[in-house]
C-alpha cells in the first residue's frame, strides 16, 4: 500500500466519521397500540428518505408515558424530540409554551385536510400545536344477530331510551349474554371518559362559567342513574372492574349485546380474534334529544417539545408520519383497513378506504358530532369533550371516578356518590384558585 493510498483511505474514513457525527438522532416517545407499532415498523421508509436522521424509539404504557413526558417537558429535560400526546395535553402544554407551533409545515402537507373537529382540539388560538396521528371518537357497537332476535332495529342515531329498551331485550343472563357493556373501572381515562361524554348528552357539565362544580345538578343525577341502572340490570357481573380491555374481551367472546366505547375498537371486534366478527353493527353514540351526543373525541398526536435541539428534523418526521403519503404507505404494505383513522378528510373521500373499512363512515360521523369547544348543552369555560383541559383534571376526575365506581359496586348510592364528587371537586378547585 503506497503512502498516497493510505492518506486517501484515512481521509475517506474521516469523511465517513464526520458524516456519522452529523447524523441527527430523534428520540420519539410513543404509546403501545397497533397503529403506533406499525409506524415504528414502517419508519425505515423515513430513514431511507432522510439518511441524515436516525430514530430512537421509547414505547411505554399510556399512563407511564404521560407521567414520563410531562416530567421531561415541565423541567425542560430535553430527553425527547417528538412526543406522542393526546388532546388533553395539547391545549394545556401549548398555553405554557411547551410545544413548538406547527404553523410552518410544508404546503404539500395540506394541513387544511385535517378534520376540523380534530384540528380544533389540537389548536390554541387557531395555531396547530400537534399533528394528529390517529383520531377516535366513541360509538355503539352491537350484535346484529341479537338485535334481530330481539325484534328490534338499531337506528343510525339511537336515543338513550332505545338503548335501555334494547339492553333489556338482549339480556339473557342464563346464557351469559349481557345487554350492555360499559366502562366501570375508576379513572379519568376509564369510567370518567365514558360518563363525562354520556353526561354531555343529558345536558350535564363539569363546571358552570364561573368554574363552580355541577355534580349537584339534576342532569348529572339523571345521567348517573341511567348509567347505574343499565349496568346493574343488564350489564356483566363485576362491571365496576371493567375497562376497555375487559369489555373488548367480553364482546369478542359474544357476551355483550351492545358496547359503547372507542371507535378504534371497531377493527378489533371485527378482527380475527373476535368470535362475532361477522355479526357486528355500528351506530352513533346515543343522545337525549338535546342536540348533543354521548361520544367523545380523542387524537393521539405528535408534538415537538420547545427547546429540542433537533426541531427541524422533528418537524420533518412529524410531517412524514401524519402525511397522506404515510396513509398510502400503510395501505400498500398492510391494506387500507389498517390506515390510521380519523385525522384527514381525504381519507374519507377515498373509496378504497371506505370499501375496506365498514366502520369508516360511522367513525367520521362520530368525530364530526363532537365539539371540544362546546361539549355540552350549556356553555362551559373549558375545552374538552370527555375531559376538562386543566392540569388539575386528572387527579380530580380519578377521585370522582372512584366514587362512581363505588356506586356501581353497590358501596354507596348515586346521591352519595354525586355529593362526594361535588365536595371533593369544590375543595380541589378552590385550592387551585379557580373562580376566585
Amino acid at each position, binding site marked *: 500500500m503506497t503512502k498516497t493510498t493510505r492518506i486517501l483511505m484515512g481521509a475517506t474514513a474521516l469523511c465517513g466519521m464526520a458524516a456519522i457525527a452529523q447524523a441527527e438522532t430523534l428520540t420519539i416517545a410513543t404509546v403501545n397500540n397497533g397503529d403506533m407499532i406499525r409506524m415504528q415498523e414502517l419508519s425505515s421508509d423515513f430513514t431511507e428518505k432522510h439518511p441524515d436522521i436516525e430514530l430512537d424509539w421509547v414505547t411505554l*404504557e399510556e399512563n407511564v408515558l404521560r407521567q414520563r413526558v410531562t416530567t421531561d417537558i415541565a423541567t425542560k429535560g*430535553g430527553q425527547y424530540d417528538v412526543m406522542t400526546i393526546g388532546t388533553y395535553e395539547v391545549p394545556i402544554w401549548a398555553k405554557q409554551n411547551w410545544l413548538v407551533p406547527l404553523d410552518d409545515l410544508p404546503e404539500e402537507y395540506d394541513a387544511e385536510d385535517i378534520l376540523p373537529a380534530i384540528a380544533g382540539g389540537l389548536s390554541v388560538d387557531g395555531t396547530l400545536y400537534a399533528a394528529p396521528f390517529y383520531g377516535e371518537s366513541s360509538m355503539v357497537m352491537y350484535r346484529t344477530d341479537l338485535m334481530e332476535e330481539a325484534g328490534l332495529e338499531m337506528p343510525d342515531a339511537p336515543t338513550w331510551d332505545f338503548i335501555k329498551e334494547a339492553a333489556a331485550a338482549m339480556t339473557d343472563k342464563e346464557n351469559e349474554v349481557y345487554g350492555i357493556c360499559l366502562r366501570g373501572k375508576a379513572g379519568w381515562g376509564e369510567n370518567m371518559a365514558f360518563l363525562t361524554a354520556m353526561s354531555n348528552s343529558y345536558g350535564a357539565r363539569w363546571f358552570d362559567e364561573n368554574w363552580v362544580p355541577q355534580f349537584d345538578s339534576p342532569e348529572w343525577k339523571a345521567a348517573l342513574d341511567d348509567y347505574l341502572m343499565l349496568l346493574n340490570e343488564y350489564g356483566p357481573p363485576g362491571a365496576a372492574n371493567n375497562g*376497555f*380491555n375487559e369489555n*373488548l*374481551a367480553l364482546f369478542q367472546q359474544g357476551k355483550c349485546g351492545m358496547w359503547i366505547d372507542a371507535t378504534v375498537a371497531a377493527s378489533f371486534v371485527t378482527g380475527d*380474534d373476535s368470535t362475532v366478527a361477522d355479526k357486528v353493527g355500528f351506530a352513533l353514540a346515543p343522545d337525549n334529544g338535546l342536540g348533543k351526543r354521548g361520544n367523545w373525541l380523542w387524537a393521539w398526536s405528535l408534538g415537538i417539545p420547545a427547546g429540542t435541539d433537533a426541531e427541524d428534523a422533528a418537524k420533518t418526521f412529524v410531517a412524514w408520519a401524519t402525511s397522506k403519503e404515510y396513509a398510502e404507505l400503510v395501505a400498500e404494505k398492510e391494506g387500507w383497513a389498517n390506515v390510521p383513522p380519523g385525522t384527514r378528510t381525504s381519507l374519507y373521500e377515498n373509496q378504497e378506504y371506505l370499501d375496506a373499512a365498514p366502520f369508516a363512515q360511522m367513525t367520521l360521523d362520530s368525530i364530526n358530532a363532537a365539539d371540544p369547544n362546546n361539549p355540552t348543552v350549556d356553555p362551559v369555560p373549558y375545552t374538552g369533550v370527555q375531559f376538562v383541559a386543566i392540569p388539575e383534571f386528572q387527579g380530580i376526575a380519578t377521585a370522582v371516578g372512584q366514587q362512581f365506581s363505588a356506586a356501581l359496586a353497590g358501596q354507596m348510592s348515586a346521591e352519595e356518590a354525586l355529593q362526594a364528587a361535588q365536595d371533593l371537586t369544590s375543595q380541589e378547585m378552590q385550592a387551585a384558585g379557580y373562580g376566585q
Partner: protein
Amino acid sequence: MARAVSNRRKVGYTIAAWIIGLAIFFPILWTIVTSFKTEAEAISSPPSFMFFNWTTENYTTVLERSNYFRHFWNSVVISLGSTVLGLIIAIPAAWSMAFVPAKHTKNVLMWMLSTKMLPPVGVLIPIYLIFRDVGLLDTKTGLVIVLTLINLPIIVWMLYTYFKEIPGEILEASRMDGASLRDEIIYVLTPMAVPGIASTLLLNVILAWNEAFWTLNLTAAKAAPLTAFIASYSSPEGLFYAKLSAASTMAIAPILILGWFSQKQLVRGLTFGAVK
C-alpha cells in the same frame, strides 16, 4: 404415639407450606403459561391452564419488535453496578457502626432507615433537575448512582446486623498482630462475613433489577432496563396480554434463575442471627 402425631404434623406443615408456596408462585406461573397462548386464548373465559395450542409466537414477536438484549444488558449493569458500589460504601460504614459505635450510632441508623419512608415521587423533580444539569439523564451511570443511594440504607442495615454477630475479639487480635484498619476490614472481617455479604448482594441485585420508578422516570432510549421493556407491552386500549406475559417472563427469567440457584445462600443470610 408421640412419634405418629409428630409425623402427622410434619405432613400437615409440608402440605401447608406447599399450598402457600404455590399460592405465592401462582401469578408468576400464570404469566409464564399465558405467554405461550395466543392473544385470543389469553383472554378466553373460562381460562384454560394446560389444554390450549402452545405457541412461542409471542416470544418471536417480542424479540423482533424490541431490542431485548440492550434492555437486559442495561439491567445487568445497573443492578450489579449499584450493588457493588453500595457494598464498597456500606462495608466500612457497617464496620464502624458495629465495632466502634459512637453515642448517636443508633440514631444515625434510624435516620438512614427513615429515608426509605419518603415516597420516591416526592423527590422526583429535584433529582430530575440535578440529573438534567449534570447530564446524567438516560445514562447507566446516573441509574447506578441513584439506585445505590436508594438501597444503601438496606445494605448498611443488613451488614450491620451480620457484623454484630462477629466477635470483636477476633478483630482485636488481628490488630494486635499488626493489621492496619484496611487489612482488618478486607482480610479479617470480610471473609468471616461472606454469607451475610453474599445474601445482601443477592437481595440488592433483586431489588435493583425490579426497581421500576426511577428506572422508568430517569431513562429514555439508551439506558432503559427491562422494566421499560415490560412497560412497552402494556396498553389500556388493546389486548396484548400474551405478548405482555412473554415480555414479563423474559424480564424476570434471569433473576428467577439467579434466585433459584442461590436460594440456600439467600435464606441463610436472611435468617442469620434470627435465632439465638
